[in-house]
């Protein structure tokens, strides 16, 4: 009896399984794609592009695509850091001011200390990294919540930038050199850097111990440390990464526009990076998220910003719309996460 039932059951199962026929293959690929949380945000990006393009064909002109890529690149690089930091359960509000400070460090390293341009960039990046170390120590070892700690360093960093620059912009050194071209000046170099960093960071997040332990730290701090995950090291690394990427994005941008401005970046770029991460599915409470999702989120914000400008919508009105949209996205993010947790049993 049992012998009769068993093969019958297995053939029934074989029939219900999707057969790998050619016709069904694209459906299966679509199915896999739709299960990814990035898919919905990608669809939104495509719909927005289609809408703005139909309203104004200039939207997809080569010039505007170049502009869009520049809008997107620096924020997307910073979003990579914020995604990692948010997943591990922390946030960095000060990164936009590292972005503003780093180019001035490059400038002074060349002008006042006579370093070569390449070395000056390295110095700028090292100091950005050290700011991340300070943020990390204050949060991880001294126990100050990151929201407050990085709010403090935000103010301090802005003060430093204003002091050393006398609140005056400077010309980025090395303009016109090959080095400057590669480091952000040529139209698409910034977005190439961004894409490269995104690919590397996505691999780090989903395919290395660093990524795995970042998720573990944000999802279950106590459980992860029980198993021996060094959550302090993980959080420190992510603060350092965010600050480093912030400084790097600032330097790229300074080479692109050939000057460093004390008021560059700031809370606007930080907020766009965090909003992009959250729109792209990174959980505000930590534990989950993807780099690609954050990138798509930043793209959507850039599309909106650029598209509304082309439509001639007033910048103030635009802030109301986008601020509201970001709040809705964050509410959805928190509520969906709660629903997901509640529906687990």
């Amino acid at each position, binding site marked *: 009896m049992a012998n009769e039932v068993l093969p019958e059951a297995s053939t029934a199962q074989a029939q219900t399984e999707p057969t790998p026929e050619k016709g069904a293959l694209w459906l299966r690929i679509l199915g896999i794609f739709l299960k990814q949380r990035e898919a919905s945000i990608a669809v939104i990006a495509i719909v927005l592009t289609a809408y703005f393009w139909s309203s104004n064909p200039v939207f997809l002109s080569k010039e505007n695509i170049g502009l869009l890529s520049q809008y997107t690149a620096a924020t997307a690089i910073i979003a990579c850091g914020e995604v990692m930091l948010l997943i591990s359960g922390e946030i960095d509000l000060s990164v936009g001011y590292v972005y503003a400070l780093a180019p001035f460090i490059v400038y002074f390293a060349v002008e006042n200390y006579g370093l070569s341009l390449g070395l000056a960039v390295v110095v700028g990046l090292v100091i950005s990294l050290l700011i991340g170390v300070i943020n990390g120590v204050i949060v991880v070892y001294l126990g100050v919540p990151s929201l407050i700690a990085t709010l403090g360093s935000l103010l301090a960093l802005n003060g430093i930038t204003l002091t050393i620059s006398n609140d005056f912009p400077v010309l980025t050194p090395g303009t016109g050199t090959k080095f400057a071209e590669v480091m952000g000046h040529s139209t698409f170099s910034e977005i190439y850097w961004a894409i490269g960093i995104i690919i590397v960071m996505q*691999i780090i997040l989903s*395919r*290395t*111990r660093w990524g*795995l*332990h970042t*998720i*573990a730290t*944000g*999802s*279950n701090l*106590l*459980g*992860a440390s*029980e*198993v*021996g*995950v060094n959550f302090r090291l993980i959080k420190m690394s992510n603060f350092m990464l965010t600050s480093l990427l912030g400084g790097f994005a600032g330097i790229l941008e300074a080479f692109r526009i050939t000057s460093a401005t004390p008021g560059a970046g700031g809370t606007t770029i930080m907020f766009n990076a965090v909003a992009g991460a959250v729109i792209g599915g990174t959980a505000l409470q930590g*534990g*989950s998220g993807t780099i690609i999702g954050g990138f798509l989120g930043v793209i959507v914000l850039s599309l909106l910003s650029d598209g509304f400008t082309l439509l001639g919508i007033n910048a103030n009105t635009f802030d109301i719309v986008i601020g509201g949209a970001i709040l809705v996205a964050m509410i959805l993010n928190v509520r969906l996460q709660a629903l*997901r*947790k509640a529906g*687990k*049993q």
Partner: protein
Amino acid sequence: MIEQPQEDVLLIEGVAKRYGAVTALREVRMHLRRGEVLGLIGDNGAGKSTLIKILSGFIQPDDGKIFINGQEVKLRSVPHARSLGIETVYQDLALVNELSVYHNMFLKREQLWKPLPLLNNRAMKRAAREYLEQLGVKIPSVDMEVFKLSGGQRQAVAIARAVSSNAKILLLDEPLAAMGAREGALILNLIRNLKGKDVSIIIIGHNYAQVLEICDRINLLQHGMITFDKPIAPTLLEELNEIVLREYRINSAGVRKNA
């Protein structure tokens, strides 16, 4: 009862712990034989959690000696206790909900594509699947994120992970708490399978009726001391009921007198 120390994987003698004026453990003497399942039961405040914390290296006793395989040891920290083969599985604490079952199984012991620092997910998946099958743990898929599993399945995965990290002495803290009959059977079945794997187990429980059927021996902890140590026998449940009832009557009489 004559004891043969060389058979004991774990022996503790005269272990005491005080928190200021409060004595949590008075003078605990307890032993665990190789391959044995020992039920450690006791009321809230009897000192169970203090004893677990000492055995898992989380806190250090004020007094007393601990022997593992006849060798005296001082359990300095959780990693130290773990390196000596003592693993503790806490209810609800162990797993990372957002990670898959196999990533949880290998958390902190990840397999890499040497010499690259990349995770060898395929190898970990296969090993996790084989290991869980071997222990008779049935879950839909090792790819599944842990928050999608039932409470019993999660507990089973947590226990399997502890054992796979080469644990010789397993401390299970309330493994059946808040679990239905079917879920509970899953865990009891897993513990039965572990018996054949040279793992000695201490089950810490509040509700002794649940753990009775799986244990070889029961220890009762009362007011910081082991007051009862007997192998499983048909009359054991009655005896335990009697002890607990007597204590309950004394306590409630005391309360009445004070009032």
